[in-house]
């Protein structure tokens, strides 16, 4: 393996994988994977979605079992049969999706997850000790639903650290954090590394890996395709190893902004659905023809609610709150809004933007029937839906067997291309896309980005809601930040700094007093 930064030793690696393989029905998830992690090393596992990173980590953490190969823990061959066994060895894992009870407090969440319960007083003391040792600000009496995502992640980290792990696995830990929260997390991880804790860091964010990790193993299609020292590589060279080809970045064509006002949202307030829905509070913004308008923000701050309100799934209290050109459409349902020229792609592909059990042809019926002649006299025109699906597949390079393929049989990236393509081929005047490249491989992501920019160049107004700042900075000409159901002032992307956006994402609005006092703690 490559040279190791801060804490190399002559001892056996903390963790070593030898020729590990794992198959699922129809997929070879991992094939002949070997690598080693030294004590104190921060080792990146780099790869696109579907490269096999998560499966590999589940094998190490005992959630899945390898079909072949060996796992060595500090030089001894081990059989990790369950997460409990993994924790016993000294392996901790912070999952991408948290396992927390919203209605319980931080303390209660930690207590219910303990393998070996301890008395309340002792446990509280132990938690406080961990919090102060690693400088993690967290109030253990707060209920989880009142916490930011960054604070929730801290609970998961504390859970792991309680067991004094010698290997910590982090699965895409920064995907939901503000830049400032990421910095804080890295400080903690570096401190752990200095204490000799090994860290396996799974990510596809190259600049983070460059900033944090000592070594990297790159996976593609379930196999190891390279190892490198990220500190001396460039983000581009690692990306090309990751996708196995040259990286194309989307290009802007034509000039942004300056067109007529297409979508005007003014004072849109919608109550949140109980128990944990976010209330939209006087959301206002204007998008012009030919412009890509970005809405940034940490997930769970009202983006889903805003998408639903724009789509018409939830009707606005007053019609004038949402206007298409001059026409008030706030009172209209999804179908009327589509007919008027507003198309929306929600964040969730399966079960929202598409029905997984339906064929691609049937899935065109969901939305395209309003702007395309897909029905006649109440009957579906099956040939027309097939032809339209065929068109989407061809023009957006969707890898599938054809319009009769079930939506669930497509990979995330291909289904997303299909969905985005389905809306774009309806030639909307306004397109709202939420998390357009969430869980999508780099190739598909760049294709989707290019298609969005092309559509804008042809005069459509586009709203991109995303938690990926890099994506927004690449696509949008102006952006706003969403926090707790509110929008910040619109910023010109040209003159904005990532730090400013990060502060807005944490809830500090342009130097004003913070909205909620407690949010300052994780915003700095």
């Amino acid at each position, binding site marked *: 393996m490559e040279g190791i930064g801060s804490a190399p030793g002559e001892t056996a690696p903390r963790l070593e994988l030898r020729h590990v393989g794992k198959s699922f*029905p129809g997929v070879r998830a991992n094939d002949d994977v070997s690598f080693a992690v030294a004590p104190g090393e921060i080792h990146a596992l780099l790869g696109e979605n579907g490269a096999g990173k998560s499966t590999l980590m589940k094998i190490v953490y005992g959630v899945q079992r390898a079909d072949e190969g060996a796992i060595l823990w500090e030089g001894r061959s081990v059989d990790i049969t369950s997460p409990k066994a993994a924790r016993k060895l000294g392996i901790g894992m912070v999952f991408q999706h948290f396992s927390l009870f919203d209605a319980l407090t931080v303390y209660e969440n930690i207590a219910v997850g303990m393998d070996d319960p301890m008395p309340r007083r002792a446990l509280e003391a132990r938690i406080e000790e961990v919090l102060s040792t690693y400088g993690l600000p967290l109030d253990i009496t707060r209920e989880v639903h009142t916490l930011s995502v960054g604070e*929730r992640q801290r609970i998961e980290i504390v859970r792991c650290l309680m067991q004094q792990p010698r290997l910590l696995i982090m699965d895409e830990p920064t995907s939901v954090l503000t830049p400032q929260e990421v910095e804080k997390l890295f400080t903690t991880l570096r401190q752990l590394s200095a204490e000799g804790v090994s860290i396996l860091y799974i990510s596809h964010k190259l600049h983070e890996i460059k900033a944090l990790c000592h070594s990297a193993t790159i996976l593609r299609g379930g196999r190891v395709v390279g190892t490198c020292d990220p500190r001396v590589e460039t983000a581009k060279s690692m990306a090309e190893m990751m996708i196995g080809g040259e990286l194309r970045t989307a290009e802007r064509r034509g000039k942004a902004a300056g067109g007529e006002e297409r979508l005007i949202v003014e004072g849109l307030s919608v109550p949140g659905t109980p128990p944990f829905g976010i209330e939209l509070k006087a959301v206002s913004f204007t998008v012009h023809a030919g412009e890509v308008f970005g809405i940034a923000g940490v997930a769970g701050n009202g983006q889903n609610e805003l998408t639903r309100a724009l789509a018409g799934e939830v009707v606005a209290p007053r019609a004038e709150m949402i206007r298409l050109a001059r026409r008030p459409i706030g009172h209209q349902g999804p179908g009327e809004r589509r007919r008027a020229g507003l198309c929306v792609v*929600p964040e969730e592909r399966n079960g*929202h933007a598409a029905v997984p059990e339906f064929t691609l042809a049937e899935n065109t019926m969901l939305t395209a029937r309003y702007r395309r002649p897909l029905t006649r006299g*109440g009957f*579906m025109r099956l040939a027309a839906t097939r032809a339209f699906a065929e068109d989407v597949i061809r023009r957006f390079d969707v890898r599938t067997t054809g319009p009769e393929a079930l939506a669930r049989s497509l990979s995330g990236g291909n289904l997303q291309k299909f969905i985005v393509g389905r809306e774009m081929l309806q030639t909307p005047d306004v397109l709202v896309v939420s998390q357009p490249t969430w869980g999508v491989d780099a190739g598909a992501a760049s294709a989707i980005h290019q298609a969005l920019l092309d559509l804008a160049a042809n005069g459509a107004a586009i709203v991109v809601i995303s938690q990926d700042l890099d994506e927004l900075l690449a696509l949008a000409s102006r952006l706003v930040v969403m926090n707790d159901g509110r929008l910040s002032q619109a910023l010109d992307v040209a003159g904005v700094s990532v730090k400013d956006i990060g502060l807005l994402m944490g809830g500090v609005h342009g130097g004003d007093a913070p909205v909620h006092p407690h949010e300052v703690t994780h915003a700095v």
Partner: protein
Amino acid sequence: MPFKLEPRREPNRTMLYASPVIAVALTALAGLLFFAALGYNGTLAIYDILILPVIDATHWIDLGVKAAPLVTIAIGLAIGFRANVWNIGAEGQYVMGAIAGTGVALHAGGTEGAWALPVMCLAGALGGALWAAIPALLRARLKVSEILTSLMLSYVAIQVLYFLVRGPWRDPEGFNFPQTRSFTDVESMPILIDGTRLHLGIPIAVLIAMAVWVVMSRTLVGFELRVSGLAPNAARYAGFREQRTVWLALLVSGGLAGLAGIFEAAGPFGQITPNFPTGYGFTAIVVAFLGRLNPLGILIGGVVLAVSFVGGELAETSVGLPSAAIGLFQATLLFLLLGVDMLVWYRIRRIAPAIAPSAAPAVVRSAS
């Protein structure tokens, strides 16, 4: 456990069609063991229940007579089940349909005309639909579970029937028996072959099955119902309103159950008696699932259940099986069908011993 269920990536096509057959076979086996354990001749009982009605042509029209109401009701239920609307109270709508249709006949003032039966049928369908409108209103307006309300209203409907046949609608010339007067010829379902019980309701059930198949697979309304059941969020996104789906599913399934009710009253029964509620509305749930919620599959499912009814009567006389045992047999069929269905989407795999199931993420709530 040395076995585990593993999800399949695609539904297993073979199992999709084989699972009803496997379920019927397993039910036969289970029934054989039950009946033998109860001290009956199990082999003969199963032969009489499942085989005899099929191979002996004299029972075929009986099969049709039994299958017709089951199919008519089950098709309506399947529309709702597809749309995630769980009308469990078809029995009540069936009874209400019979009551409404009979009411027209009794109160038509003795006018004998060709319009009598069509109007009775219309009233039957409306009666069933109105009875189903109560759970629809409660679900659409107040989000009350239609499973409970529709089920409970079945018992109300049966009590209404008891009240009517014992009170206001009792036949004055019926020697005080609790029953309505017999329907006249123009009020009765036409018999298609003289001397048999083959009535018009049987071909109509087949036509309904075909029509609903077309509606569900080829029209926008069918698409709406299917989307609503599979992915409620996608339905909202597509501009379909949940309330409309609830109303549609309950009114159609109630209407079809009501139609089956008046067909049965004006057909095989010829009048309403306290024995009228025979549980077709509940058995139709089994038929709907046996037919995979597909109208054409339901035709087959209806015949299978009709076989068990006709065969059950044969077994009652031949081996002295109590009629409750047939109910047990049919319930076993549904139970095993749902169990075997698991294999359509999952496969059983042997796994190496000593693996504890994953315990880490106790309750998952993604931090989206």
